[in-house]
């Protein structure tokens, strides 16, 4: 099975690569259109700022390419937010695979960014096979996707938000499975074994 990680101007791509290595999977980091389109699985990771990332993707025509992918795609953190409709982070239209809007944490009694381990609940679908309800996952983020019909896991930080979303062949997780201990590794394995 071939797995690619989309290369763009966002950080933290190496951590995903290392996590895959730990579970014995080789992945190629690339921005080559043909390689991305023909891969069996695509991971769209990232830590960074939404509007700069979107500008970079548009310049290289990666925006349309990602939207049209037919194989299972997993967006992680910023990658998940970019799959959404719009982000409040510098008010940018994103890829629009999901209808969710991405908002900034606004409750002043909660520190921003949210950093650390929080629970994921109301887990739905194959991405969370063998993951217990209220499992802990590692989060680092200042923006969050709202809840909607595509939400497959939720987390509370001031209010409830989408910890994970899925629609057709697209999946997104706000937390970092690559840093979420054994549960995170199981979620990555589940993504790789989606049919």
């Amino acid at each position, binding site marked *: 099975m071939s797995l690619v990680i989309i290369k763009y101007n966002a*950080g*933290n791509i*190496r*951590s995903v690569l*290392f*996590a895959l*290595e*730990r579970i014995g999977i080789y992945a190629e980091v690339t921005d080559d259109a043909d390689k991305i389109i023909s891969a069996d699985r695509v991971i769209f990771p990232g*830590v*960074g*700022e939404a509007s700069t990332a979107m500008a970079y993707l548009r310049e290289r025509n990666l925006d349309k390419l990602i939207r049209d992918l037919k194989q299972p795609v997993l967006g992680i953190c910023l990658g998940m937010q970019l799959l959404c409709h719009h982000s409040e982070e510098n008010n940018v239209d994103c890829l629009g695979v999901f209808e969710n809007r991405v908002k900034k944490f606004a409750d*002043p009694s909660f*520190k*921003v*960014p*949210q*950093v*650390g*381990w*929080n*629970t994921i609940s109301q887990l739905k679908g194959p991405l969370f096979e063998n993951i217990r309800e209220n499992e*802990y996952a*590692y*989060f*680092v983020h200042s923006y969050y996707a709202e809840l909607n019909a595509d939400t497959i896991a939720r987390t*509370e*930080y001031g209010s409830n938000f989408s910890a994970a979303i899925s629609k057709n062949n697209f999946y997104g997780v706000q937390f*970092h499975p*690559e*840093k*979420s*201990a*054994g549960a*995170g*590794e199981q979620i990555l394995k589940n993504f790789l074994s989606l049919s």
Partner: protein
Amino acid sequence: MLTKRIIPCLDIKDGRTVKGTNFIQLRDAGDPVELAMRYCDEGADELVFLDITATIEKRKTLASLVHSIATHINIPFTVGGGIYSLEDVSILLENGADKVSVNTAAVKRPALISEIAGQFGSQCLVLAVDTNYINEEWMVSTHGGREITALKTLEWVKLVAELGAGEILLTSMTSDGTKAGFSLEITRQVANAINIPVIASGGAGTMKDFADVFIQGEADAALAASVFHFSEIAIPDLKKYLAKQNIPVRQ
């Protein structure tokens, strides 16, 4: 609910952990990777590696050690010690560190904070602040508490948060090594002065000290070294204890 984090700290010199441990199951107590994996299994929430290697030549071994840690552990880890430039940061992140911790270099040149945050993101920058209680004032110190600066701790943390630090690692040099508990008052003041997470460090001796720093000190995370290295406190026991006090922890 977001949980309070427990963070063991490993001092590294020339690629080896400095303080011995009495973990009898370890094959090699000086091997940072093996010790790190042990802490992962026990339920540590993150790890901090502090490099105290004296010479620049031997410091080059740090990158390969970081790479090895990254391929073995599945929780976030921070690397600190001797980071002075964007290039130092880049090498560590490239080799798999999730965050870097900067201390003296930021005191000398605060612009380094915004440069690191701008290039790599605030999420990877843990600003280490050493503080000493001197003449009834908490002052910032460097060089392991030996050099006291003219900076007041509360003013400094507000500035570094504004410049883009992602978290503060606050070490009370007044409490460090005493095992008499964290410095609760300054921890609480720092936690209330800024809107980024605060990791409290220095003085952990008992499980109650951790509960105190989370409740009275309002810290988001607590870091300790020797109580974990010498198995005086086992992480699973600590978490059970904290959960009983209604402090949210990952178990």
